[in-house]
C-alpha cells in the first residue's frame, strides 16, 4: 500500500467543492482512499480518523490545500494524482442561458405576457382542469385530449364563450390559426377562406383540397367532434362563424361536421342565414334543402366543399382542374376482379375520411358496415371481424383504447390489412395516408412491406387484389407528398386524388353488372 501527499500552499477552495472533489477522487480506478481538503484542524482530525495523517499534513496551514491518496502501488497513486488534477480543471463552456421551465399554466401565463393560446394534450382525466386554467388566464385553448366528459366540455365552452375566447376541442386534432397548424395539420397556403370544422381529418381534407385548387386558408377552427351534439349545442361553431364573419381577411366560410343534431343544425343554419359572408356547408350525409333555405351553399362531398369555396373566393371555375373520376381506370379494375370479389374494406386513420367513403358507399349499397355506423343494424358487433362492405375508423376509441392513434403507431392497421387481404370476397382495400404536422414521419413506408406481401399472396392464389391509397397532404408538407405517392405506385397501389374520389373509386371498382 502506498500513500502520496500533495500540499498546495495558499490555495483556497470552498469546503463543499472539496467534498465533492473528494467524492469523485474516491471513484478513480485503483484509489483506496482519497482526501482533498483545506488544512484545518477539523480536516486533520478526519485524516487522523482514517489513518492518513502524516507529519507533513500535520504541518499544513488552514490556507493550504491538502491532497492525500492511498492506493495499492506508487504508480497507481501517481496516476490518481494526475486524475485528481484533472478534476480541478474547470469544465468550462457551460451551456448558454437555460430556457426557464414552467410547471403550471398559471406561472407560464404570468411570466409570458405575450402567450395567447394553450395547446393541451394531457391525459383526459386532467385535461379539463388545465383547459379551465388556461381560459382563466385569458388564453385561447386547443384541447387535443380525448376522454373529457361532455359536462366538462359544456362548462368549458360556456366559460370560453362568456370570456370571448376560442375553446377548440376536446378531442380536436386540427386547427390552423394565423397560418400556424396546431397538433395535426397540413402546410396550406395563406388565403381568404375560413373553416370551422367539427371533424379533424375532414377539416384537414378540405384545407388540403382548397390548397390543391389554388386557394388558401385564413383560419381553421376545430371545434371538437361533439360540438354539434344536442348537449353542447354548437357553442364553438356559432362563435367561430361569428369570428370569421368579423375577420377582414376571410371572404368565404366553410363549415364541416358529421351529421349534427337536428336542433343544433337549425341554430347553425340560422346563423348562416344572418351571416354577411357566403357560407359553404358540408355536413356529411346531410340534406341540401335546409342549407339552401338558409342561403348557404350545400356541398355533398369534401371535394365539392373545397371547389365551391375557392370559386366563391374568386377562382374561375372553368380553369379549375377538378380531377374528374377516371372511368377508364374503373373499367380496367372491374375487369380484373372475379365475380366473388364484391366488397370494399376501408382501413382508415382519419375518422372523417372513413365517414365520407362510407356515406358514398351507402349511396350505392345497403350492406355497408362500420364501427362508426349510425344505423344500428349495420354497426359492427365485433369490430375485429369485417362483414360485406366494411369501413373502419381505426382512430376510434374501440381501437385506440390504451394504444396510440394509428396516425402515430400503425401496427394495428398493418395486422388488420393482412387479414383483409386474405379474404377472397374482398375486391378493394382502401387506406388513407396522412401527412403533415403531428403525423408519422413515413406513413407509407411503414405500410409498404405488408402491401407487397399481400399482393404477392393474392397473385399466388391467382387473384387480383386492388389496393387503393389516398395520401392526404400538400406539396408543402413533410414528409414529401410526391415521394410518398411514388412509393405507393411503385408497389402497385392505385392512387386517389382526394378523399371524395377515394370513396367513389372504391365503391365503383367493386360494382358488378353495370
Amino acid at each position: 500500500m502506498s500513500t502520496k501527499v500533495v500540499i498546495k500552499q495558499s490555495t483556497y477552495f470552498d469546503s463543499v467543492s472539496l467534498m465533492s472533489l473528494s467524492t469523485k477522487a474516491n471513484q478513480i480506478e485503483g484509489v483506496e482512499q482519497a482526501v482533498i481538503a483545506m488544512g484545518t484542524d477539523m480536516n486533520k482530525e478526519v485524516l487522523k480518523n482514517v489513518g492518513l495523517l502524516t507529519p507533513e499534513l500535520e504541518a499544513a496551514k488552514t490556507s493550504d490545500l491538502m491532497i492525500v491518496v492511498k492506493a495499492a502501488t506508487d504508480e497507481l497513486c501517481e496516476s490518481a494524482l494526475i486524475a485528481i488534477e484533472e478534476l480541478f480543471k474547470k469544465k468550462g463552456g457551460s451551456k448558454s442561458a437555460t430556457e426557464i421551465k414552467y410547471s403550471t399554466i398559471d406561472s407560464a401565463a404570468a411570466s409570458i405576457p405575450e402567450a395567447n393560446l394553450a395547446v393541451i394534450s394531457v391525459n383526459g382525466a386532467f385535461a379539463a382542469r388545465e383547459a379551465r386554467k388556461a381560459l382563466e388566464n385569458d388564453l385561447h385553448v386547443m384541447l387535443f385530449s380525448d376522454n373529457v366528459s361532455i359536462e366538462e366540455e359544456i362548462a368549458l365552452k360556456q366559460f370560453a364563450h362568456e370570456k370571448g375566447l376560442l375553446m377548440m376541442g376536446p378531442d380536436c386534432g386540427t386547427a390552423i390559426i394565423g397560418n400556424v397548424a396546431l397538433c395535426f395539420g397540413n402546410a396550406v397556403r395563406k388565403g381568404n377562406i375560413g373553416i370551422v370544422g367539427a371533424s379533424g381529418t375532414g377539416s384537414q381534407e378540405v384545407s388540403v383540397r382548397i390548397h390543391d385548387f389554388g386557394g388558401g386558408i385564413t383560419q381553421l377552427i376545430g371545434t371538437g367532434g361533439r360540438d354539434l351534439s344536442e348537449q353542447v349545442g354548437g357553442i364553438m361553431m356559432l362563435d367561430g362563424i361569428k369570428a370569421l364573419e368579423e375577420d377582414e381577411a376571410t371572404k368565404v366560410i366553410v363549415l364541416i361536421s358529421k351529421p349534427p343534431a337536428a336542433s343544433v343544425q337549425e341554430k347553425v343554419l340560422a346563423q348562416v342565414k344572418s351571416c354577411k359572408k357566403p357560407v359553404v356547408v358540408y355536413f356529411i350525409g346531410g340534406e341540401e334543402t335546409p342549407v339552401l333555405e338558409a342561403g348557404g351553399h350545400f356541398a355533398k362531398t369534401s371535394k365539392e366543399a373545397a371547389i365551391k369555396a375557392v370559386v366563391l373566393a374568386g377562382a374561375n371555375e372553368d380553369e379549375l382542374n377538378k380531377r374528374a373520376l377516371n372511368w377508364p381506370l374503373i373499367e380496367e379494375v372491374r375487369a380484373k376482379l372475379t365475380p366473388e370479389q364484391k366488397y370494399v374494406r376501408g382501413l382508415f386513420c382519419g375518422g372523417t375520411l372513413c365517414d365520407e367513403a362510407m356515406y358514398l358507399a351507402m349511396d350505392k349499397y345497403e350492406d355497408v358496415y362500420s364501427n362508426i355506423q349510425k344505423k344500428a343494424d349495420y354497426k359492427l358487433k365485433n369490430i375485429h371481424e369485417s362483414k360485406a362492405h366494411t369501413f373502419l375508423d381505426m382512430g376510434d376509441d374501440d381501437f385506440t383504447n390504451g394504444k396510440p392513434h394509428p396516425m402515430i403507431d400503425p401496427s394495428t392497421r398493418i395486422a388488420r390489412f393482412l387479414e383483409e387481404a386474405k379474404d377472397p370476397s374482398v375486391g378493394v382495400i382502401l387506406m388513407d395516408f396522412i401527412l403533415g404536422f403531428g403525423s408519422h414521419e413515413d406513413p407509407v413506408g411503414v405500410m409498404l412491406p405488408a402491401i407487397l406481401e399481400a399482393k404477392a399472396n393474392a397473385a399466388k392464389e391467382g387473384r387480383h387484389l386492388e389496393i387503393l391509397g389516398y395520401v392526404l397532404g400538400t406539396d408543402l408538407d413533410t414528409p414529401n407528398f410526391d415521394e410518398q405517392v411514388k412509393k405507393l405506385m411503385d408497389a402497385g397501389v392505385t392512387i386517389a386524388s382526394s378523399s371524395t374520389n377515394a370513396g367513389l373509386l372504391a365503391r365503383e371498382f367493386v360494382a358488378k353488372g353495370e
Partner: protein
Amino acid sequence: MSKINELFNGKIHAINVGIEFFKDDIIKQNANASHLDWKPPGGGKPELINALDRLENAAVAEKIAAANKLAVERIINSQPMLVGFDQAINVVPGMTKTTILHAGPPITWDKMCGSMKGAVTGAIVFEGLAKDIEEAEQVAASGAITFSPCHEHNCVGSMAGVTSASMFMHVVKNKTYGNVAYTNLSEQMAKILRMGANDESVIARLNWMRDVLGPMLRDAMKIAGEIDLRLMLAQALHMGDECHNRNNAGTSLLIQALTPYILETDFTKEQKREVFDFVASSDYFSGPTWMALCKCALDAAHGIENSTIVTTMARNGVEFGIRVSGMAGNTWFIGPAQKVIGPMFAGYKPEDSGLDIGDSAITETYGIGGFAMAAAPAIVALVGGTVEEAIGFSTTMKEITTAENPNVTIPLLDFQGVATGIDIRQVIQTGILPIINTAIAHKDAGIGMIGAGITYPPMEAFEKALLAVTETISQ
C-alpha cells in the same frame, strides 16, 4: 376587436401542455411555443385533485388569497433582531431542568434515530442527570425526561436539535410583530452533539460553551443592545452565502458586529482569544443565527385562518413534519424522512447516512438555503455541480411560492427577491417539492457529521396538509 380576432391577427405564442412535439411543430412554423414541465396535479390522485378543485372555488380561493397575502407580508415585513444570549432555562417557554427539546415533529425516545439518541444521552450527561452515556440511556428511557419539539417552544435546533436547560440560546426578537425565537449556539462542525457525537471531547466543548462562550456573548449583547439580522442576512447573500450550508460571509459579518462588544466584556484576554479561535475554527458559527431569524419571521405568519402557507418544515431523523399557517398551533403533517444525497467526508459511504434530520429546513421555509442556491455559486457541488443548476433550483422554487422577498435578494438573478411563502396548493398542483440542502449525520450515535447534500420533504406531508386544510376552509 374581439379576443378571437386579436388572436387571428397577432403572433401565436402557445403554451404547450402534454405532447412535446406539438411545441416543436409550432416553432418550425415560426411561431412561439413554451413547453410546460407538467406533471399530473396531486400525482394524479383523485382525492387531491378534488381538494384542489374545492379550493379553487372562487369564494374559497379569494379567502385563501387574502390570508396568504397577509401571511407572506408578515414573513417579509418581520424584522428579527438579535437581542441577547441566555441559558435555555432562563428564557425558553416551558423549559425545565429535565426537559430536552429535539428537532422535528414530536418523537419518543424509543423511536429516535441513532444520532438523536447520541445527542440526547450526551445532553443528559452534560446536564449532570447521569454520570455516563450508559446511565443516560436508562434515564432517557425511564420517563424522567420530558421530550418536546423545539418548534413547540419557539425554538429551532440544528440537526438533532437537542437543547437542554443550561445551554446558551440566541434570543431573537421580531421588531415588527413582537414575537421571540430561540436557538442553540453552534458547536461548529463534525464530531459534535447535534450530529450525535457525545464523547468526552463533545461534553468538554459544551461545558466551555456554557461557561465561557455563552456568558461572553450574553455580556457582549447586553452592551450591544440589538443587531439587525435581516440586514445582515441580505448582505451575506450578496457575499455568496445561502445561509444554510454556506455561512462564510454571514459568520464574518456577525463576529465583526460582535467583536467590539466582546472586547468590552470582563473576560480574560485568553478567554476572548479562545472565543475568536472557536469562531475561526469553522464558518458555521452564524448558521443557527439565521435559523432563529427564519423561525422568528415564520412564527409571525403562523395561525392565520384560511392560509395555505407553510410555516415550518422540520425533521427528527425518522419523520418529516410540516406546519401550515391556517392550521393554528402544533398541527403537524408528517411523512417519512428521506435520504440526503451529496458529497461525503473521506471514509464514509451513503449507507452510513442517517435520514434527513434537523429544524434547519426552517431556512428553506423562509426562502434561503436551498431556495437561494443561486446566491452561493461556491457550493453548487451540493446541488449537482453547475451554477446553472443552482440558478434552476432558485427559479423553480418560485413555482411553489407566493411572493419574492424584496428585503433578501440574489445578485445573480438580477437582484430578484428569494422565493417566499411555500403554498401547499402549488406543491400539490406542480408536484415540485421544496429543495433542502443540508448536512448528513451518521446513522449511528456517537459519530457525527459525515457529509452534506440535498433532499426533499415527503410529498405525503403536503398531501395530508392539503386534505386537512380543505376540510377546515370549506366548513
